[in-house]
């Protein structure tokens, strides 16, 4: 079980959280301008990275707030957690430096 540090509540067991998939996918500003390829990219295509992966989590059974994490999907080690709306931390700011 992962130990996840909620930016608002501190470290908590994985059981308290829900997973929200890849982070930083912004809704299109002008939906009517998107063609079918762009919609498919927005709705369905995902990085599915092996390595550092920015993703959304929700502290469902705690503060109930969404936040973001960078996790190494090759080891499940969580490299950073940060508040929604803030940019993804640079590689040098992650746990253990560059990932």
């Amino acid at each position, binding site marked *: 079980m*992962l130990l996840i540090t909620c930016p608002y509540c501190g470290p908590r067991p*994985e059981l308290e959280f829900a997973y929200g998939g890849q982070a930083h996918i912004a809704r299109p500003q002008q939906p009517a301008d998107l063609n079918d*390829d762009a919609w498919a990219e927005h*709705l369905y295509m*995902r990085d*599915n990275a092996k390595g550092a*992966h920015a993703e959304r989590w929700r502290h469902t059974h705690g503060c109930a707030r969404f936040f973001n994490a960078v996790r190494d*999907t*090759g*080891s499940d080690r969580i490299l950073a957690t940060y508040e929604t709306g803030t940019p993804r931390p640079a590689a040098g700011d992650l746990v253990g430096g560059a990932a």
Partner: protein
Amino acid sequence: MQKFSAFSLLREGLSGQRGWQAQWRSPEPKRAYDAVIIGGGGHGLGAAYYLAKEHGLTNIAVLEKGWIGGGNTGRNTTIIRSNYLFQESSTLYDHAMKLWENLSQSLNYNVMFSQRGVLMLAHTVHDVQVFKRHVHANRVNGVDNEWLTPEEAKDFCPPLNIEPGMRYPVLGGALQRRGGTARHDAVAWGYARAADALGVDIIQNCEVTGIRRDASGAVSGVETTRGPISTRKIGVSAAGHTSVVMGMAGVRLPLESYPLQALVSEPIKPVFPCVVMSNTIHAYISQSDKGELVIGAGTDIYTSYTQRGGLHVNAHTLDAICELFPQFRRMRMLRNWGGIVDVTPDRSPIIAKTPVPGLYVNCGWGTGGFKATPGAAHLLAWTMAKDEPHPINAPFTIERFRDGYLIDEAAAAAVAH
């Protein structure tokens, strides 16, 4: 190929078992092949077999990063069924089922295919309505499936607890009698042996690190840890690592890779006659011929490539197993493990050409790829050989996500994911 028969078994038995040959070669990779399959699981080995057997393409190689059958082929819970909801899906999975029914004979290899029946339990009014709809849809599509009352379900599977006092009482079940299990290692080995006999090179410990493309954009070869290999046709059958491999050719796919765990008990005498699955309370169970209870459930909640997951997911599964089968409460579990499954948004696979000429993909099987092994292999081979899909896999494109032709099997996938 040394043919297996009752006579060869007897002869070797009488001569101290010293006459058996290796079942496939371990060749050095050649500089060039007519086609290369990336991924030496059941799907990839099977595709190589059908390419050689049905399409006459024998100068081909299967490249496997580790050892054949060491990925999801050796990590699944061996359940086979074809009772999916939509016509596209039931046609696809029943194509595989029909190949399963003759596979041991075709390959001269006992894959221990056992049509012991797959019983999917309903625990809520909603489940009952959905499963009855599935039963009717399957029968319209020519796939066997029948509705059982709780008492009929218990007759079919005597260990089942149908007491009304359960937290999630059994309200009935959908039974596919043609469903069952097969020995998953034997599937990989049987295909490997048969493909090798037709001239296919099976190259293990050979990781693909790059996909080469020529000036027109078409594939021209692969880079591997055992040197470059030239080829004009590449079939990717890499399960959980499909996104990684396809990324080497610049192709993005609608996939997310999740850990799916399974576990087995200590081996015991035969106690369990069939396969029982419950989507609602997250568990499925069967008994292997070795005697172990083979148990699985849903994926972990987050994407990962680690081939492991949280122990609490297994504990949750065992909660459900102990409720359905109270007699197993004191059994000890021997081993647990994870595999990485590539899940599409509509829970249906992709077997298709890609935007890159000469590059073909078989992926997105999520938690249900083993049951489709012969079918997926057969259709990938067809698509690679003819450079166009077979009518059965024609709907299972990448473009369906752009064009809105999703094949939404989220409810038919036996586990929530």
